[in-house]
Every structure is written in structure tokens, then in C-alpha cells.
């Protein structure tokens, strides 16, 4: 019989992945393999991935006991079936592998998103007459047509033509910014300041608008 069982080392011991097949056969195969490598595996902690199988408490309990006789500890059962997960949990088994080690953790990049800040992503063009309002930041993948309005408590980023009206920092945040690939709004507001787009000449370039000394200024986009 082809072995469908894979055993690999993980942080918390060993992960046993059972393949397809009848539970009885697969369980027997596992126990056979385990006993063959008994000396090597002795004292190991096993997490067993049973796949889609729905297993009863009796089957899981029996598996744990049999492994225990071999000197192995079954500490977790992973399954796609919520029924199996629940059964495992009532037996005191874990159903998830633990989080990665601290040194493997990714350090989050410093952003302005503090706890509670939110942003909404809209993937369409806003046509005339459409009003999009959100207390946090707004990101639009599309155009904002003249006659459409965007009102954000936070920042506004338009990955397209911004030709409608926009109000960033609508609740009074004077650090709010407005960015667009084509910054040509009929009216731009940040907090309580209002500005009108000056007559544009030449190619459109990505720009960012912000308040500086209480006035709205727009600068070509420069990430530095």
C-alpha cells in the first residue's frame, strides 16, 4: 500500500498529514510507521492533520491512547471539518498550530493607522451625483467625475482622475491630505480650508494636496 502519510518537523514537534483513504486503514498505517520509528520518535509531540474527515470522540480518543502507549503525545488535531474540530476540543486537543516565534514575526512599519483608524477601498468610478462619505480614509480605484463628491474624515487617495469635489479631514483634521493621479477637483477642501484648482497647463502628474500654514497647497508627488 502506498503510504499517504507525511511526517514533518514543526516548531511544536511533528506534524503528521494523513492522506486520503479510509480512516481505519490510514490509522493503522500511521501506527505501523510510528512503531517502526519508535526510538527516533519517542517523546515526540504530534499534531495530526486528518483533512476532511469527520471523526468521532471515540476514534480520536483511541488514537491518542494508542499513540500514548508508544510514548507519543497527541496534542493537536487539524481538520477542515468543524465537527471534528469541536470533537477534538472537547477532548482537550488543540485544533490550531501555535503562532510563529517572536523572531519570525514581521515588525509592522510605522504608519498613521493607529488603533481605531479605518479606510475604505472603492473600486469603481464615481459618477456625477454620487456622494461617498466615510469617517476614516478613502481610497478610490477609479475616477471621481465632476458632480460627484468624496467626503472623508481622514485622507483621500484617488487612483484616477479627481474631477469632482473632495473634502478631506472633514471632521477638522488639518493633517489630512488629498492625493490623485490627476488632481483636478472642481473644489478641494481640507478641514475648513477651501481651494479651487488653478488653470492647468501641460501634462497631468500625480499630486498631493495638504495644508501648509493654514493654506491649501498642491505639490507633485514625491515619496521622499
Amino acid at each position, binding site marked *: 500500500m502506498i503510504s499517504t502519510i507525511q511526517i514533518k518537523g514543526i516548531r511544536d514537534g511533528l506534524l503528521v498529514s494523513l492522506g486520503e483513504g479510509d480512516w481505519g486503514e490510514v490509522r493503522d498505517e500511521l501506527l505501523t510507521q510510528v512503531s517502526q520509528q519508535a526510538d527516533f520518535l519517542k517523546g515526540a509531540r504530534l499534531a495530526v492533520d486528518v483533512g476532511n474527515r469527520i471523526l468521532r470522540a471515540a476514534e480520536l480518543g483511541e488514537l491518542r491512547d494508542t499513540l500514548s502507549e508508544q510514548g507519543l503525545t497527541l496534542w493537536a488535531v487539524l481538520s477542515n471539518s468543524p465537527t471534528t474540530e469541536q470533537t477534538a476540543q472537547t477532548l482537550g486537543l488543540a485544533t490550531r498550530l501555535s503562532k510563529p516565534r517572536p523572531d519570525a514575526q514581521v515588525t509592522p512599519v510605522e504608519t498613521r493607522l493607529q488603533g481605531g483608524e479605518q479606510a475604505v477601498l472603492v473600486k469603481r*468610478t464615481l*459618477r*456625477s*451625483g*454620487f456622494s461617498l462619505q466615510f469617517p476614516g480614509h478613502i481610497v478610490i480605484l477609479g475616477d471621481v*467625475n*465632476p*458632480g460627484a463628491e468624496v467626503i472623508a474624515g481622514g485622507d483621500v487617495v484617488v487612483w484616477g482622475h479627481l*474631477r469632482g469635489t473632495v473634502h478631506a479631514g472633514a471632521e477638522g483634521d488639518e493633517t489630512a491630505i488629498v492625493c490623485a493621479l490627476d488632481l483636478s477637483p472642481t473644489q478641494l477642501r481640507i478641514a475648513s480650508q477651501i481651494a479651487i484648482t488653478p*488653470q*492647468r*497647463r501641460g501634462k497631468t502628474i500625480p499630486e498631493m494636496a495638504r495644508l501648509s500654514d493654514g493654506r491649501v497647497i498642491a505639490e507633485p508627488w514625491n515619496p521622499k
Partner: protein
Amino acid sequence: MEAKVITITSGKGGVGKTTATANIAAALATDGKRVVCIDADIGLRNLDVVLGLENRIVYDLVDVVEGRCRLRQAMIRDKRLPELFLIPAAQTRDKSAVTPSDMVRLCDELRPDFDYILVDSPAGIERGFRNAIAPADIVIVITNPEVSAVRDADRIIGMIEAEEKGPARLIINRIKPEMVRRGDMLATNDVLELLAIELIGIIPDDENVVMSTNRGLPISMDGKSKAGQAFRNIACRINGEQVPFMDLEKRDGFFGKLSRMIRPGGA
């Protein structure tokens, strides 16, 4: 026969909905298609005038909806084009006399007997507009190459999408190629960039159109007129034919390119 219901709308008033409805209907009927037009502009009816049928109105749309006559009694058959029919609007009532479901019911009753049902929408975004698009299989938005008209067209396209009647098709009406060349009028591409829907026709400005609507003789029946040809092309496209757009904005060589480069505003 299972008719397609096409509603022609615009948002802005006066851009050419009624004229387009009349002319496209006449062109389709000339082609042998059986067409009925419905004037949904209750209170400000015009389609009967433009088609030259106002003298023959006995019953209208509201009479049908309120059960004072049968549908067939309100239908006026055009004597020049036997496949063309009109159900006129009422002039002494207003848009509240008809509901969207009335329109759907009416069109369903007409579907088996016609190839096309053309609904002439009123201007605006209120009840009249909603009545007109309720039965539509296809919505055609008509606009002029002017900033204010395009603004309204954008709004109406948004509403059509919101009512899940999209995607709409676009007709740009009253193009003046000389003004486009000078940079004083929006070019077709400028309009399409903003509205972003499929173009189904462009119609040049033609003073003969005003004369034709005054006389009640659809200009699409006039072989010599460019606007008439444009309407006939639209009818062909509605029928599924591939007809290239008339070249109204032919750029003339070097000077054309130069004038475009120094055009102010960059609209």
C-alpha cells in the same frame, strides 16, 4: 416577434431625445421593422409633433393606463410608414398619472406584435425618467458635446446603473466639427473619456433638423442630410449591423495638430 424595448433618455433637456426617437423609429420602419414609439413625457408631449401626427390623437397613454380605452385604440399608425406606430402622451396630465409598473405592463402587452418599442423619456431624474426606463431592455443616453450636458449624462448613467438597466449606450448629438477643430467644443473622445460607455452614434449639427421637426417630417427619411444619415446608421447598429462612424472630425494635417497642441484648458 419579440420586441426589444429601447428607452432614449438624457437627463438634460433639449439635447435631442424626441428628435432621435422619431428619426430612429422612422429609419427602423423604413427598413421594414415594425416599430411603436411611446411618448413618456406626460404633460410636455412632443413626439407627436415631431412625427407630424398631432392632428390624429384621440386617445393617449394615460387613457390606456386608466382604462378608458384599449391599447390598440391609442395607437396611431403613420400613413407614410405603415410599420410605424405612436402612443402619444397626455398633455393635460403630469408624470404622476403613470407608474413604472404601468409602463412595464404596457410594453409586455406590445412585445409580441413589434420588433422594437421605442420609449421617449422626459428630461430629469424623477418619476418620468423612472417610468421611461422601467420597461427598457436597452437604454440609450443622448448628450450634446457640452460640459453641462455631459455632466447630466454622467448623472443619468449612474442612475441607470443603479437601476440595473446598464450598460447604457451613447449618442452624441449636435457635433459641430468646425468648433471641435478650433478647440471650442468637446471632441467625441473627451465625452467618451468621462462617460465611459459604448458609443452607438454621433450626429452632426444640422439646421435642417429644426425644419424637419417643425414640419413633422423625420429627417432620417431625407437622403441628402448628414444628420439623417447618422440616424439611419444608428438604426442599423441597433439592428446589429457594423456601421463605421461618420468621420465628422477629420483633422487636417499639420495645422490641425498644431492647433490641438496649443488648445487652452486641455479639456
